[in-house]
């Protein structure tokens, strides 16, 4: 399996997140500057599936999402925890093709 369509471009919310389910995998999708970024929806700091409900933006130029529960920051590029905890979320390849949003959940890269 490679890239799978999860939704259309219109479902994305600019500078915010939504979640999609691919098999048993929950993916959080962020739409920033016309690019889509896919990461795991599970927040390892809180144990809850809440990442898509976090505020995204950047810290020192690196795109990130702040988990809404305890405000842990994770990089949208590497998945790494940005405030010094030994935690990370998976990062999935994602792209927009025409009007389709595609994610490859098998090719997760997990920094740790």
């Amino acid at each position, binding site marked *: 399996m490679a890239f799978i369509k999860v939704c259309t471009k219109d479902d994305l919310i*600019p500078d915010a997140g939504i*979640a999609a389910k691919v098999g048993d995998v929950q993916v959080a*999708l962020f739409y*920033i500057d016309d690019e889509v970024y896919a990461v795991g929806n599970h927040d390892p700091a809180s144990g809850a*599936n809440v990442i898509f*409900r*976090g*505020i995204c*933006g*950047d810290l020192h130029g690196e795109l990130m999402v702040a988990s809404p529960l305890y405000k842990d920051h994770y990089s949208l590029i590497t998945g790494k925890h940005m405030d010094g905890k030994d935690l990370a979320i998976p990062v999935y390849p994602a792209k927009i093709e025409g009007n389709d949003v595609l994610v490859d959940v098998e090719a997760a890269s997990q920094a740790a």
Partner: protein
Amino acid sequence: MSARKQTIVVVGNGMVGHNFVEKLVDAGLLEHYEVHVFGEEPRPAYDRVYLSSYFSGKTAEDLSLVPPGYYEEHGIHAYLGDPVVDINRRKKIVYSAKGREVHYDKLVMATGSVPFVPPIEGNDREDCLVYRTIEDLEMIEAKAKVSKTGVVVGGGLLGLEAAKALADLGLETHVVEFAPRLMPVQLDDAGAGLLRRKIEKMGVFVHVSKNTQLITDGEKRRNKMVFADGQELETDIVLFSTGIRPRDDLAKKIGLKLGPRGGIVVDDMLLTSDPSIWAIGECALHDGTIYGLVAPGYAMAQAVVHQLQGITATFTGADMSTKLKLMGVDVGSIGDPHGMTPGAHTYVYQNEPEEIYKKIVVSEDKKKLLGAVLVGDASDYGNLLQLYLNEMELPEHPDDLILPQRSGSSSNLFGPAALPETAQVCSCYDVSKGDIIKAIDDGATTLADVKAVTQACTGCGGCTQLVSDIVNYELEQRGVEVKKDICEHFPYSRQELFHIIKVEGIKTFDELLAKKGQGHGCDICKPAVASIFADIYNSFAMEEDKIGLQDTNDRFLGNLQKDGTYSVIPRVPGGVITPEKLIVIGQVAKKYNLYTKINGGQRIVMFGAQLNDLPAIWEELLAAGFESGQAYAKSLRTVKSCVGSTWCRYGVDDSISMAIKLEHRYKGLRAPHKIKMGVSGCTRECAEAQAKDVGVIATENGWNLYVCGNGGMKPRHADLFATDLDEETLFKYIDRFLMFYIQTADRLQRTARWLENLEGGIDYVKDVVINDSLGICDELERQMQFIRDTYKDDWYEAVHNPEVREKFRMFVNSDERDPDVVFVKEELTGMYRPATPEEKLKGIAVEVRPNA
């Protein structure tokens, strides 16, 4: 560490006795000493300096100097309501009234003083009172209820404080002074004359050069005072405030050396005639002087603690300079205010229209300050005191020190830079300029930090301006720009962003970022800007370009709980709810298996709502007439109220109606942080309004308004803002107050912290809100009116707008719920609570779905 701990017994738990214990703790001496404290009064040490504030709303707890649990926490044995009655100096044992016996190695007498009552015939009559302890105050309060008139005998510091207390209690108040002027020790004739005029303007009658000879039955009032000049004065209450006498009866009993007119004789080490016993505070007679102020007492405590630390320390007398606010009049007195020093010169500045009097006394060569008198404006006190204490050289024209600094004139004759590091800035806690510098070197970056670390400004508060100046100066010197940037994306404070957005009419985050910021924004600046948009444009959180700015609570209009579910809180204005609505809440909670609890804001919370169910839940609630409680937003939460005159037999006014009106008036108003309000129908204060951001309490003549109270982590008692307001004025003040707070506070700064960090404090806010000193009140009211006029219920919008409604789902590509959100039925309550990780592993957790 030594083999056995030595024992210190402290006899007396007043301000100085407690300060001594505090200093022992801070010096780490509890490692070497076991400490026993005996106090006569039933409660631990409290602030006698601010005693009169008891009548303007402060409670005994507010006045307490001992945090709850302080003695226990430090392993100090404290026996309150149990005075020491005898001491065996040979065996070194103290005996208490309740029969305790404690052996000591060292003993500290801190027995304080008692009020002096002059030997006037009739001074033991039932209405003759003194002013020293909280019990005295309770007695005065009780008597005042059956009295119309009160006379304070004694026009000194304490006497005028006492007069304020009587005036606050609503009595016709007189002050009778033996000397020809008020505050004869500290003030000269001109200064005292101005003080008298100001006090008389407030309706207090002042009688000087009056020698009371007899107190007897009155004709119109219960008592009559007869003076040596034959005049008479009828009164109900006679309050003596004619000085103090050291509490030396115990010392006398055990044979310590006393002074000819009382007081325990101490040397420069503060040792009594027994080398194992020290005496400190108002019971001690040092070099022929009893110090009736708290700062010298604290200095004595410090000297003894230093000795225990092995540091050579002596007490060689103390400065008796004072600054205080007497009945709203600023008064300061420094050093030799009467110019008694040979060759001294005097400069006087007298401003009759503005009622200001300033005098300085300088040395013959005009190089040193010897004394000063300030009445009506004591803002120069801190600087003058430093010049005096540090014997600093005066400017070429010493009168520049008291002449007004009008435009064009040099404004910095003796700024914080000029002070030596040894200069004592805060006399209450003995904080020097060097201590403040150290605190800044150790990382303090604000006045609040410095206060927390050094305790400066936290006693009488007289040094606040000076400490603030030093902090700002030192930070500037270090090149520290006092940074207030909200985050790395905007070089502006929240207040500055507010004004930028408003003045430039910016309507989107992208526009703001492009014009004034950099990067993509973050979880700090985005919600702050969203809140500002809501304040200025009343913009809805779910507008397409605003969604990404919202904290999850604002985005999904619920409070996110630890498991990813939300709580649902409908508005229950004033905590009043009909049976029909209660039933609906029950039905909804039952249908969606929600966990129900009544929270601290008199509302019902339904926990465990899943994202997908939120619109349906709210649809049912809205249909039953509920509206959003905005519990998820940084906005008005709840207006707590008692039942008031509707039901309560003590209620003075209808607190329920007032609470409901307030709740509807300010619901949905976005703010830097949440806002809580309370309304009590009488002074019993069942709604705890004084712990709220805005508190309203009914009086016989209207409503009293309190602001900037706080419960939570750092409780703060609210400040009385205005009294006896009619409803219209009350709303007007609250409109202005809230909008001023919203425009000027930092993000996540509650009103209490905002006020603490606001230069000028509560007086400044009063000036802005009541006197419109900034000329912005019209604008503040207009903005509030706009917010009110454009109010929309968040949930009504969300439920009835299909585009918004479809966003309340867990997954964009599936109608499934989050499979990891599972529950366990709680045994105690029979309701579903989130499963723990262990329960999930064991497989005993269940998914919960709405019942049909």
